[in-house]
């Protein structure tokens, strides 16, 4: 039961940790951790109030709302990431502050980072709670299921905590592109689940969606550079035509 609960909750915990670490590195650690803590507090209150009745909480509308919000916000980041990397390359934003610091919440508390982590942790935490109660009730061993789930949170949370330094080395614009792709992936998957979509391969569809979005974003980098040079040539032509030619100036 202990191992079953560990592995059953591991995927939900990985999703939770990925969002908290991604938002923390790309935007603000303070906002991300406060959002995650607030999500855990809300979850603890919900579980304490409902007990085993937490199984009856309707997850479908929660998945749809959280997924749709993550999707539209993730897309904003993905587009900005593609535009900026296409414009300035991958390296900008590594040490020097980015020109668009408003995105990273440097003007005070970053409420956007807070909301992203809060939603990720409360939705995934709720799913963990439902799994624990379902597994525990089925085998009449809620205690073991709780220990298994807690172990998954501690182990995977520690891995997330250890890897954040590696992630922090990625330049901010590249990070914006990849975190945007990750949020878009989770958003698409959860919103689809909320609408009753049966994803091929179940949770493995997350990996496929993520790969498709990342490959598409990398392809769009080339396309956007091409569009930009085309548009620059188009705007340069009328300007040079309007400018007086040197021969006419000598007359």
């Amino acid at each position, binding site marked *: 039961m202990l191992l079953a609960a560990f592995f059953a909750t591991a995927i939900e915990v990985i999703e939770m940790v990925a969002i908290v670490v991604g938002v923390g590195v790309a935007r603000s650690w303070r906002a991300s951790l406060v959002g995650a803590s607030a999500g855990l507090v809300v979850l603890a209150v919900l579980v304490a109030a409902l007990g085993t009745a937490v199984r009856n909480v309707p997850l479908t509308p929660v998945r749809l709302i959280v997924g749709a919000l993550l999707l539209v*916000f993730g897309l904003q980041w993905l587009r900005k990431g593609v*535009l900026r990397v296409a414009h300035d390359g991958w390296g900008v934003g590594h040490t020097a502050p980015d020109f668009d610091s408003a995105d990273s919440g440097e003007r005070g508390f970053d409420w956007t980072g807070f909301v992203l982590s809060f939603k990720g942790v409360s939705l995934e935490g709720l799913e963990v709670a439902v799994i624990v109660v379902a597994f525990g009730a089925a085998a009449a061993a809620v205690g073991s299921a709780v220990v298994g789930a807690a172990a998954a949170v501690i182990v995977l949370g520690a891995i997330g905590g250890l890897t954040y330094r590696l992630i922090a080395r990625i330049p901010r614009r590249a990070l914006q592109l990849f975190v945007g792709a990750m949020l878009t992936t989770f958003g698409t998957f959860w919103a689809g689940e909320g609408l*009753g979509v049966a994803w091929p391969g179940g949770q493995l569809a997350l990996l496929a969606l993520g790969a*498709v979005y990342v490959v598409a974003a990398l392809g769009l980098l080339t396309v956007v550079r091409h569009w930009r040079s085309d*548009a620059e040539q188009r705007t340069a032509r009328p300007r040079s035509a309007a400018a007086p030619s040197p021969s006419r100036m000598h007359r």
Partner: protein
Amino acid sequence: MSRVLRGVRAFVMFWIDFIIGDDWTVAATVAIALLGTWGLTHAGVVAWWLLPLAVLAVTAVSLRRAVGREVREDSQSQPSLR
């Protein structure tokens, strides 16, 4: 304006910015794709492909528009030839 009204306004503006951002057509397309997915799924049609397809299409279209806007702004900000 009272502090409460300012707070409510800031709250509403935060969510508008969070959902709509700088291109309202992206949020609108996602909303239409969600409705389409819901409709197809409830009609018994396999519809998992619709949302990712809409996401990819709207991203490309929105980027195309953004590039045109950026280039226009860049050319206007350059000093004119005299």
